[in-house]
C-alpha cells in the first residue's frame, strides 16, 4: 500500500504553511470511551443558526437519546441527552467563542450505556454498504435533522440544511473531509482507522440525500493507516479515496475542493454554489448512525493532547461534559501547563473556564506548556512578505493588520479584509511576531457593522 502512494500525484493548493505536526503525542492512542459522567449540561445553541428551546422541564426524567431542545427554524438542530437521568434547573454557560448560551443540565440516574456497549451502539458492529438507496433522500434528511447532526469538523453548521436539494444549485460531488490538518489533533485519524464502516455508509447516504453522483474522501498523506482503512472499507462501494498533500490548511473546505476537484469557491459563497458539499468524517459517521440505527448525535470523539496534559488520549465523550472532567480523565493538567485550547492550535479558542461544556463541534482539547506556545515580543513589520507568501486566500495580511491598527477601515476593505478565514498561516510565519490574525479580526468586525 505504501509503495504505490509515493508514486501518486500529490493533490494540493497554493501557498499555505507547514507547522510542526506534533501528532505523535496522541496519534497511536486508540479511542477510549470516557466513564459516564454524573452530570452533563447540554447547551441549547451548539450550531450555526437559531438556538433551541427546551422541550423538557425541571425534574423530568429522560433516557439516553431523548430530545432536550428543538427549534422550528430551518437552520437549526435539536439537542438530545447523552445520558439517562433527571433534568435539573436550567443553567447558562460561556462557550469557548465567548457566547453565553442556556443549557439543559441532566443529572445521571439509573443504568447508563457505557464502555464497549456504548462504542458498539454508536460506531461499532457492521455497517451495510449495499442497499442504501432504499432510503429516500427526504427520509435521510429528516433522520439527519431529527438526530441533530451538525458539522463536526468545528463549524457546526446543521447538516440537513447542507444536504437539502436546491434545484437552482444542483450538487454533483460529496467530499468527505478526513484531512485533520491542524497540528496535535488525531481524533479523525483514529476514527477513520477504527470505524471506517460508518464513515463510508454515512457518505453514501449523504450523497443519496444531496443527489451527488460522486463521493470522494480526502485524506492527508501523513495518515497512512487511515488511508489504508478507508480504502479497504470503500472498496467496491463506488466511494473514491484521494490522497492530498499534507499542508495546513488542507482541511479548509475551499482548499480541499481546490486540491481534489480543481474548483474555486467564490468569496462570500458556499461550496454548494459550485455543486459541492463537504462534510467531516465524524459527521458522516453520525449520519450513518442516525439513518441506520436511529441514534441522535449525543457523543463525539475528540483528542486531548499537548505537553501540558499527563496522559494524551483520544476519547469518545458525551456532549455536555465539562472540559475539566475530560482533562481529569486524562490525568489532569501538568504544573507547567499555561494554556488550554478548545480545538486546534491554529484556530482554536483559548478557554479560561474549565466548567465549559463540550459541544458537537469540539474537536480537541490542547493543554500547552510555555515552550509550545512561546511567542516572541512584537517588533516592527519589515514588509518581508512572508505573510503574503503564506496566505492561502491570496491576501496581504500585514496591510490589513496595519489598517486595523490605525482604524483605517477603507484601507482594510480595499485589501479584502472580509475574505480572511483567520486560519493563522500569516501569524505563524511572521518574523516580527505581529499578532496579525487578531488585528485582522478587529478589521473584519469593524467592517461587518
Amino acid at each position, binding site marked *: 500500500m505504501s509503495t504505490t502512494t509515493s508514486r501518486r500525484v500529490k493533490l494540493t493548493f497554493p501557498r499555505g504553511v507547514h*507547522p*510542526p505536526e506534533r501528532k505523535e503525542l496522541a496519534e497511536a492512542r486508540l479511542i477510549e470511551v470516557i466513564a459516564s459522567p454524573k452530570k452533563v449540561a447540554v447547551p441549547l445553541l451548539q450550531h450555526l443558526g437559531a438556538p433551541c428551546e427546551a422541550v423538557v422541564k425541571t425534574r423530568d426524567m429522560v433516557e439516553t437519546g431523548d430530545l432536550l431542545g428543538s427549534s422550528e427554524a430551518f437552520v437549526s438542530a435539536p439537542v438530545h441527552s447523552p445520558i439517562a437521568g433527571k433534568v435539573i434547573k436550567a443553567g447558562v454557560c460561556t462557550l469557548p467563542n465567548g457566547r453565553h448560551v442556556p443549557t439543559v443540565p441532566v443529572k445521571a440516574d439509573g443504568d447508563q450505556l457505557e464502555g464497549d456497549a456504548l462504542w458498539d451502539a454508536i460506531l461499532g458492529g457492521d455497517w451495510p454498504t449495499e442497499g442504501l438507496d432504499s432510503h429516500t433522500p427526504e427520509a435521510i434528511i429528516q433522520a439527519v435533522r431529527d438526530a441533530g447532526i451538525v458539522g463536526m469538523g468545528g463549524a457546526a453548521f446543521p447538516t440537513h440544511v447542507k444536504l437539502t436539494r436546491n434545484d437552482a444549485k444542483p450538487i454533483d460531488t460529496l467530499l468527505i473531509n478526513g484531512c485533520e490538518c491542524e*497540528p496535535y489533533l488525531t481524533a479523525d485519524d483514529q476514527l477513520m482507522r477504527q470505524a471506517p464502516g460508518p464513515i463510508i455508509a454515512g457518505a453514501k447516504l449523504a450523497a443519496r440525500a444531496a443527489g451527488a453522483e460522486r463521493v470522494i474522501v480526502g485524506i492527508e498523506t501523513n495518515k497512512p493507516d487511515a488511508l489504508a482503512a478507508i480504502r479497504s472499507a470503500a472498496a467496491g462501494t463506488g466511494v473514491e479515496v484521494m490522497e492530498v498533500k499534507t499542508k495546513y490548511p488542507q482541511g479548509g473546505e*475551499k482548499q480541499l475542493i*481546490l486540491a481534489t476537484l480543481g474548483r*474555486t*469557491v*467564490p*468569496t*462570500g*459563497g458556499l461550496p454548494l454554489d459550485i455543486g459541492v458539499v463537504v462534510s467531516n468524517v465524524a459527521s458522516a459517521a453520525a449520519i450513518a448512525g442516525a439513518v441506520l440505527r436511529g441514534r441522535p448525535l449525543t457523543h463525539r470523539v475528540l483528542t486531548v493532547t499537548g505537553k501540558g496534559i499527563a496522559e494524551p488520549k483520544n476519547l469518545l465523550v458525551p456532549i455536555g461534559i465539562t472540559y475539566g472532567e475530560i482533562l481529569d480523565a486524562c490525568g489532569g*493538567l*501538568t*504544573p507547567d*501547563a*499555561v*494554556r488550554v*485550547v478548545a480545538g486546534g*492550535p*491554529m*484556530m*482554536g479558542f*483559548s*478557554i*479560561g473556564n474549565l466548567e465549559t461544556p463540550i459541544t458537537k463541534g469540539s474537536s480537541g482539547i*490542547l493543554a500547552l506548556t510555555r515552550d*509550545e*506556545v512561546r*511567542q*516572541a515580543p512584537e*517588533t*516592527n513589520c*519589515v*514588509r*518581508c*512578505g*512572508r505573510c*503574503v507568501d503564506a496566505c*492561502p*486566500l*491570496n*491576501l*496581504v495580511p500585514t*496591510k490589513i493588520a496595519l489598517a486595523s491598527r490605525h482604524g483605517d477601515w477603507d484601507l482594510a*476593505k*480595499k485589501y*479584502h479584509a*472580509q*475574505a480572511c478565514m*483567520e486560519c*493563522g498561516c500569516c501569524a*505563524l*510565519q*511572521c*518574523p*516580527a*511576531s505581529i*499578532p496579525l*490574525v*487578531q488585528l485582522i479580526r478587529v478589521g473584519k468586525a469593524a467592517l461587518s457593522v
Partner: protein
Amino acid sequence: MAEEKPNAADASKPTIEVAPSPHLSNTALTTRRMMLDVIIALVPVLIMAVWVFKWYAVLQVGLCVLACLAAEYLLACKLRGRPSSLGDLSAAVTGVILGLSLPWSAPWYVAVIASFAAIGLGKVVFGGVGMNIFNPAMVGRAFVMISFSVALGSGAYVMTGGMEVVSQATPLTAGKMEAAVVELWPLFVGNVNGSLGETSAIACLLGGIFLMVRRTASWEIPASLIATVVVLAGGAQLAGIFPNLTVAHHLLGGSLLFGAFFIATDPVSSPMTIKGKFIYGAGTGAAIMVIRLFSGYPEGVMFAVLLMNGLVPLINNWTVPVPFGGPVPERK
C-alpha cells in the same frame, strides 16, 4: 495576559492564561535572523573586497558599520527616547552595504557623514525600522555623492603609484568614457577597480543565491531586474550604443549584481506582492540601463533603486491581489 487563579498559591496547580489564536509560532524565524542572513551572504563579497583593496576595505566597511551603529544609537534611541534597537542588526546591515558601496579612497568623514545620513534621513525620520520608503544605504550614498562629488566621482577610484588594480579606471567608466575594451574574466572574479562590493560578480552571486535559498530575499526582484538588463543591454548592443560594452559587461560590471541581490531586495523598500516585485525589478533594471546608456554617469544602480523606491507605494497600490475566489461581494 496571565489570569491568576484563586489558588495560585498552590504550586502544583497550573496558572492558565487566555490568548487569541494562533497558539503556535515559528520561533526560529525572526527579523534579526533575516538580517544575520544578509550579513552572512555578504561574507564572500567582504572577502573579495579585502583581497582586492586590502586595508582600505577593512577601514571603509568597519568605519561605516561603527558610524551606523552610533547613528542608530544617538538618533533612534537617545533622540527619540526609545529602548536600544541595535540588537536587530538592521543598522549593522546598512553599515556593511553602505561601506561596500563606497570607493576605497573616500575619506573617513565621507563614510561617517554617509552613515549618519543613511540612518537619520533614510530611516529614523520615517519612524525607524520597517517604516522607511527609501533604501537607507542608498540614501546615505546619494547624500555624499552629491555633497562630495569629487570624493565619489569617477576620478576617485584611480590612483597612480599605488596598488596595481587601482591604477585603471573602473570597467564601466573605461568602456563608456574611454571606449576601452574591457576583459570579462576579471569582472567575474573581481580583479578590477570599482566600489568595494561591486568588483566580484561571483561573490555577489554566491551571496545572492544563499539569500534566495533562505528566502530572506525574494527571487522575483533579482530575476526580473537581471532579465530586464539583459534585454535592454542586448538592444543597446544591437543599436550600437557603446558597442564595446556587451550584455555580459553590463551584467558583470558595475554594481549590477551587488545591487540586484543586496540593495534592490531590501524588504522594507520593495513591494510586498509577487506581481509588485516583478514590476519593481523590471523598473529598476530599466532605470539602471537608461542611466548607464544615456546619462553622464557610468553607473546607475543607486539612483535607479532610489527612483523605484519612490514608486513602491504606487506599485503596492496597483498590485492589490484579488482574493482566492474573487473579491468580497458588496453587501446587498
